[in-house]
């Protein structure tokens, strides 16, 4: 068994992970960080983020306003102390990224430009055209290369947290290239593996977003928080689910139904005069309602509405939204300069995740989490567009620094105990690779996704969610009987898919079960049988714990500081 030892083990190399890694080596001159990532870091899903990153910039803005917008967007489920911390550190983090070379779009005088975004009451979204995530990720990755103390294990798949006496001291990681398991030991572990959009069939999320970090923590007894809140982005391309950024509405795009109406203006969907700049949950519901009312277009991938950018003109589209134009042309054959883009709501983001405090620490000693994998929570029941990239930076840095502090105060774990666990993982991998069984990975994955869409979509009710819970339980049973065909060790992606599916089934179950017991509508969790918010019972985070018998669900009060929950109307 190969054993690698570093101070800090990082799982995932996207925006949050790389920020955490850089923070860790910058805050301490000796610390080494080992970045375990199942794909080359610059491939991480941060790369697909388009619209921008929020932080107070202009003189028309202030921290309280950003905090209030975020809290209101979250339907008051976000922790107010976390949000205050977040908005305060956001501008510095985005400036830091500017210093690291991120090509932010600029004003004529050379200052960083900002744009409007859904649910934000003033312009505060920093952007690099409409490839913000791409530029942020590459700037972070390239900057990380400066540090020899950031050691990368690219294309290593973390399969288990190694735990000694209740404290996490590393991970077992499958080297996809060789098929061997390596014990990667450290005194703290940071999870930055992103979300789990792939548990749904139509998602903006990349194939790699399979909830790995959530499942790793969950199976070791760390609770997942607010998992029932899954954000649908209102404007994805039908079929592929490719994201058409909210910036297209921020820059002035309009939504139309098949009667040529700007339905957000002509019908009352609660977004008021914000119209297309309303928050995502509300817009997604509005589009679904239009579909139900027969006012949507019919296409080969079901119903859709139109996102019209034509009035912005070619020059503005090319300057501010070049990627939208490229995507629409390439993938649906529509040039937004001349035609409206077909769009529909599509799964985009998990508000929930591994339970952390505002330093990124989870309840398990030594374990930290940041980015989409974590629920701090600043997003509550609905995240505002452009807060997530900033969240990766703010809480990535916080987790990196907190992990260094933790690692400095404790001894190494018992190597024998940890390596034994990794050896067991190695045995499990060998067994899995040679597994014979009647079930196919792809079939179970497809059924899981279909079941999540039907039960935990934009609109939910008790019957649909209970059916999904039952279906998932049955799928987990069938998973035990999967068979694998690829017996070779070198770059065996089938075994990776098998483990990803296991992770997704755990995450899906957490989503469905927590959703089924929250008998109210809040943010992205919209129940037709309980259409209103119920602060008396549910101004609470859900916490789900793993148990062999099935998820165990508990609740924790939301932290309130200066804002009283109010009705969410725009």
């Amino acid at each position: 068994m190969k054993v690698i030892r570093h101070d800090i083990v990082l799982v995932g190399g996207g925006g949050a992970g790389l920020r955490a890694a850089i923070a860790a080596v910058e805050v301490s001159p000796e610390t080494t960080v080992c970045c375990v990532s199942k794909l080359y870091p610059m491939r991480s899903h941060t790369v697909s983020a388009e619209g921008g990153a929020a932080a107070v910039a202009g003189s028309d803005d202030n921290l309280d306003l950003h905090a209030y917008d975020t809290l209101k967007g979250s339907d008051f489920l976000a922790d107010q102390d976390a949000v205050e911390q977040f908005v305060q550190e956001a501008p510095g983090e985005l400036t830091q990224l500017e210093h690291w070379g991120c090509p932010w779009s600029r004003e004529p005088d050379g200052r960083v430009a900002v744009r409007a975004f859904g649910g934000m009451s003033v312009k505060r979204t920093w952007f690099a055209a409409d490839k913000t995530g791409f530029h942020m990720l590459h700037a972070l990755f390239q900057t990380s290369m400066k540090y020899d103390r950031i050691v990368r294990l690219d294309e290593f798949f973390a399969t288990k947290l190694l735990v000694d006496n209740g404290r996490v001291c590393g991970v077992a990681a499958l080297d996809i290239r060789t098929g061997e398991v390596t014990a990667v030991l450290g005194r703290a572990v940071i999870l930055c593996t992103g979300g789990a959009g792939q548990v749904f069939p139509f998602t903006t999320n990349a194939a790699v977003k399979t909830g790995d970090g959530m499942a790793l923590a969950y199976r070791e007894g760390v609770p997942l928080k607010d998992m029932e809140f899954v954000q649908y982005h209102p404007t994805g391309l039908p079929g592929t689910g490719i994201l058409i950024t909210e910036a297209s509405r921020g820059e002035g795009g309009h939504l139309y139904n098949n009667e040529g109406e700007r339905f957000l203006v002509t019908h009352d969907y609660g977004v008021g005069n914000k119209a297309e700049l309303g928050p995502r949950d509300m817009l997604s519901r509005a589009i679904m309602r239009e579909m139900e009312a027969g006012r949507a277009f019919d296409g080969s991938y079901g119903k859709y509405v139109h996102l019209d950018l034509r009035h912005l003109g070619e020059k503005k589209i090319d300057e501010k939204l070049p990627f939208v134009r490229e995507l629409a042309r390439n993938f649906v054959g529509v040039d937004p300069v001349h035609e409206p883009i077909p769009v529909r709501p599509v799964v985009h983001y998990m508000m929930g995740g591994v339970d952390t405090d505002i330093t990124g620490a989870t309840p398990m000693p030594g374990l930290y989490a940041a980015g989409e994998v974590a629920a701090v929570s600043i997003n509550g029941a609905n995240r505002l567009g452009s807060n997530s990239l900033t969240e990766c930076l703010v809480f990535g840095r916080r987790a990196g620094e907190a992990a260094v502090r933790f690692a400095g105060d404790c001894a190494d774990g018992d190597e024998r105990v940890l390596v034994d666990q990794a050896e067991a993982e190695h045995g499990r991998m060998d067994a899995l690779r040679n597994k014979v069984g009647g079930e196919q990975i792809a079939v179970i994955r497809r059924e899981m996704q279909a079941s999540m869409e039907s039960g935990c979509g934009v609109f939910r009710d008790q019957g649909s969610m209970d059916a999904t819970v039952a279906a998932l339980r049955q799928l987990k049973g069938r998973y035990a009987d999967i068979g694998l065909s690829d017996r070779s060790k070198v770059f065996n992606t089938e075994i990776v898919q098998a483990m990803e599916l296991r992770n997704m089934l755990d995450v899906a179950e957490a989503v469905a079960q927590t959703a089924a017991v929250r008998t109210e509508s809040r943010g992205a969790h919209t129940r037709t049988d309980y259409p209103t918010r119920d602060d008396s019972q549910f101004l609470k985070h859900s916490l789900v714990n793993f148990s062999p018998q099935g998820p165990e669900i508990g609740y924790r009060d939301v932290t309130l500081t200066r804002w009283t929950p109010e009705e969410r109307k725009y």
Partner: protein
Amino acid sequence: MSEPRIVKFEVFRYSPEGAETGEGKWQTYEVPCPDDYVVLDALNHIKDYIDPTLSHRWSCRMGVCGSCGMMVNGTPNLTCKSFVRDLEHPIRVGPLANFPVVRDLVVELESFMDKLKSVKPWIIRKVEKDVKYGEYLQTPDELDSYRQFSMCINCCLCYAACPVMINEPDFIGPAAIALGFRYNQDSRDEGEAERYAVLAGEHGVWNCSYANECSEVCPKHVDPAAAVNREKLVSALQWLHILPKKGA
């Protein structure tokens, strides 16, 4: 939607273990392809329902993560944006040329990663400004002077198309040079002198033979050939001491 039609794919298979050792082979699959299928969809269909032993890399399937580059009918391409309907059949899918093959359609990228790092792709400054004093000012014109070269997604198609790579695998190549040039051109950077030794060195720009193939295949219109040749011009003038090196 019209019925999917059956399309023949010839996919390259190689494994250092078991039956596929040796020189690799072309394996034929028949895939039912709806009209809007891209090559990656077909590969995933093969992986999911025909032959789970096929290995390939992919992730975002929207042309920005850079992981699904392969040779499609002899041309390096992102398989997520190569529409089956636009290609001649049978469709031949192979691993990126000019890279060692790890398995099937998966190539070895370690040398590429080293090349990227060798150009020091980060902002180098003599004096760093504290974040609390705000951003470095950069006008839209200054941004435009390097922006195109910051669009590279590291998909490596340019390396697979570059005729120099065939015979000189140590050439740092179009993407790495474009990245180094991108930082050299950035008004915030002062690292040109540090990058000179690599960019204008033994494995640097002078190996380029003006084929322009990199720019022909670049899916993001980065035009690495422009970067390579501009760097040649700048380096030549610096070599003649007509032009100073930023940060020297």
